[in-house]
């Protein structure tokens, strides 16, 4: 998770406090629509697998916990 939280902090400089595993990254506006493309690129680099964009939904990227479960737990 460390590379992801580091990326989120790079995208959101000056962010106060931790990013909880169950925090809604979209509602918190820590990721915007175009950031998603960079997020996908990051996740694919970390997991070594291409994400099937037809198979995922926005909710799969909504929290760090879900991201871990969906993309990084293999």
């Amino acid at each position, binding site marked *: 998770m460390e590379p992801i939280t580091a990326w989120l902090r790079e995208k*959101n400089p*000056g*962010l*106060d406090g931790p990013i909880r595993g169950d925090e*809604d990254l979209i*509602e*918190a*506006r*820590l990721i*915007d*629509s*175009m950031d998603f*493309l*960079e997020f*996908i*690129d990051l996740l*694919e680099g970390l997991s070594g697998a291409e994400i099937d*964009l037809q198979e995922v*939904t*926005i909710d799969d990227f909504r929290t760090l916990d879900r991201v871990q479960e969906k993309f990084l737990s293999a």
Partner: protein
Amino acid sequence: MSTLAVVATTAEVLARPELGEHLLARWELDRLALVRRPDRRADVLAARLLVRLCAARLTGQPVAEVALAQLCEGCGRSGHGRPYLPGRPGVGISLSHADGVVAAAAGPGPVGVDVEPAGRRPPPPAVLRRVLPAAGAASGAEWLRRWVRAEAEYKAGPGEWRPEEWTDAPRAAVAAVASRGPVSVVELGSLGSLDSPGSLGI
């Protein structure tokens, strides 16, 4: 009847003395409170105020009486998803915000609007090509114009759209609006205030 579209900076919108959080509904304030970054919280607030101004201008309602709702067609829940005006099914509204610039549109029918800073850094090309092939194949700054057009179409909903796209040079922004009819891109200053609601009256 034209669709009204406006691009402004967040600062321009929030500088209007008649506009503020008091115009938002409780559920909107609750969502606003979840936004972690103050600058993005300001963007969201400004976009929600700007779309109220557009709707007021289009319908003739005072801004303070414009109520917004949202419905997600994916999960069926309210509070997020496509915005609309309860009780006015013939009016379409849309809003967008990105790093200090905001856009809103209101029109007689489905409408979608998107805005991005003109200097936005391109996303990873390989992912962009997969998500939006037309933008991924574009050169120079054309990718961003294709991106905002696609976002505007998506927000307008299913259908065939021919989005109108433009560059707002003073605000260093690129914007697009998708609607069924003609589009009037207007300045924030022409939208009136609480004391002078719209005259288009639909």
